[in-house]
C-alpha cells in the first residue's frame, strides 16, 4: 500500500500550495479603489489598452528592482493595484465616456475624494481626483480623461503613494496623463481652458 500512501501524501502537498491570485474584488474595500463600472461598451474598440497590476506582481517587481532602483522599489511597496484602461472611442461612445466621468465624479465627491485637476474644453476633458491618507500621502489616485485624439482614459492607483513620485511611476509604467500632473506646482493646461484646481 506504500504507493497509495505516497499518492495521498503527494495530493495533500499539492493541496497545500495556495495560488496567490487576487481578484479585483479584494481591493474594493480599500478607500483608494474606484469602480468605474462596466467598460463592456468599448470592448470592440479598434484600440484598447487594459492593464491591471495587482499586489503580488507589484511586490515581485519591487523585489526585483530593489538593488537597481531602491527608490522605485520603495514606491512600489506601498501600492496595491494599478489599473489603466484606454479605449479609442467614436462620437457616440464619447457621450458614454462623458457619462461615466460625470457619474464617477459625483460618487467620488461623496466619498471625500479631492478633485485636484479639472480641464474641460471642446477638445478634451480631464479630471484628476486624489484620496489623502495620513501624513499627506495619497491612498488613491484617479484620472479620467477624454483626450483630443478620442482616447478615453481611466486610471486608478490604489495604495500609499508619495505625490512627488508620480512622475517616476508614470515614466516606468507609461501611465497616460500622469506625466502632465505636477502636484507641487501647476498642472499643464491649455490656455483659456475652463479649469478648476483645488
Amino acid at each position, binding site marked *: 500500500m506504500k504507493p497509495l500512501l505516497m*499518492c495521498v501524501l503527494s495530493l495533500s502537498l499539492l493541496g497545500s500550495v495556495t495560488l*496567490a491570485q487576487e481578484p479585483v474584488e479584494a481591493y474594493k474595500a480599500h478607500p483608494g479603489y474606484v469602480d468605474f463600472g462596466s467598460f463592456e461598451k468599448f470592448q470592440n474598440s*479598434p484600440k*484598447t*489598452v487594459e*492593464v491591471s497590476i495587482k499586489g503580488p506582481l507589484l511586490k515581485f517587481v519591487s523585489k*526585483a*528592482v530593489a538593488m*537597481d532602483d531602491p527608490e522605485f522599489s520603495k514606491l512600489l511597496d506601498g501600492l496595491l493595484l494599478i489599473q489603466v484602461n484606454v479605449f479609442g472611442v467614436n462620437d457616440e461612445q464619447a457621450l458614454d465616456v462623458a457619462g461615466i466621468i460625470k457619474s464617477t465624479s459625483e460618487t467620488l465627491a461623496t466619498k471625500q475624494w479631492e478633485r485636484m485637476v479639472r480641464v474641460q474644453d471642446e477638445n478634451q476633458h480631464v479630471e484628476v481626483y486624489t484620496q489623502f491618507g495620513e501624513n499627506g500621502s495619497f491612498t488613491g489616485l484617479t484620472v479620467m480623461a477624454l483626450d483630443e485624439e478620442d482616447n478615453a482614459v481611466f486610471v486608478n492607483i490604489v495604495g500609499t503613494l508619495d505625490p512627488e513620485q508620480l512622475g517616476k511611476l508614470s515614466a516606468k509604467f507609461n501611465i497616460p496623463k500622469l506625466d502632465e500632473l505636477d502636484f507641487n506646482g501647476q498642472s499643464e493646461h491649455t490656455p483659456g481652458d475652463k479649469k478648476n484646481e483645488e
Partner: protein
Amino acid sequence: MMKKIFIVLVVSLIVFGLAVAASCIPRFEFLDVATSVRASMYPTQVQKKFKLRVGSMMILAARMIASRATDTPEIADYLGDIKNVQISIYDVNRDEGSVALAIPPEADHGLKERGWEPFVRVRDNGQQVNLFYKAINDGLAGVYAVVLAEDKLVVVEVQGKLDKLIEKALQQQGLPDGLELM
C-alpha cells in the same frame, strides 16, 4: 482478480501523475487556448508553423550541459528553476474580405479558471497582445502570452520558479523606461 485490477489502477494513476509532473503530456490549458483562438478565427485559415515544447527532462539535460560550461555556469541555476516551456506559432492567412480578428474572451476565461491572472491586454491596429501571470506563495510561477499579429498567432507558456530568472534579467537590463502600452 479484484486485487489485480486495483493494482493496475493504482499503477496507472501513479504513472499518469508522474507523467504530468514531468510534463510529458502537453498541458491542457496550452492546447485549449490555441484551439479556442483558432476556432474563433474560422473560416480564416490558421496553420501551425512552429511548435516547441521543452519539458522538465529536456531542461534537466540542458542544465547538465550548461553546468559544464565554464563561462556561463549560472545559466544552469536558472534552467533548474524552469519547469516547462511551450511555444506555438501559427500562420494566419487573412484574405482581403476577412473581418478583424481578435482573441476571444473564452480563451481568457479558460486561463483565469486555471489560476492565470491577466495583467496586460492591448489591441491596436489589428494586433492584440494578452499577457498573464501565475503567482504561487508570493513567487512568480509562470507567464503566458497570446499574441495575434497581422499574419501570425503566437502562444507562449513558461512555467517554473521564475523569480530568480526575471530578477536577474531586471538587474542586468533594468526596468524599461516606459512600457510601450500606448
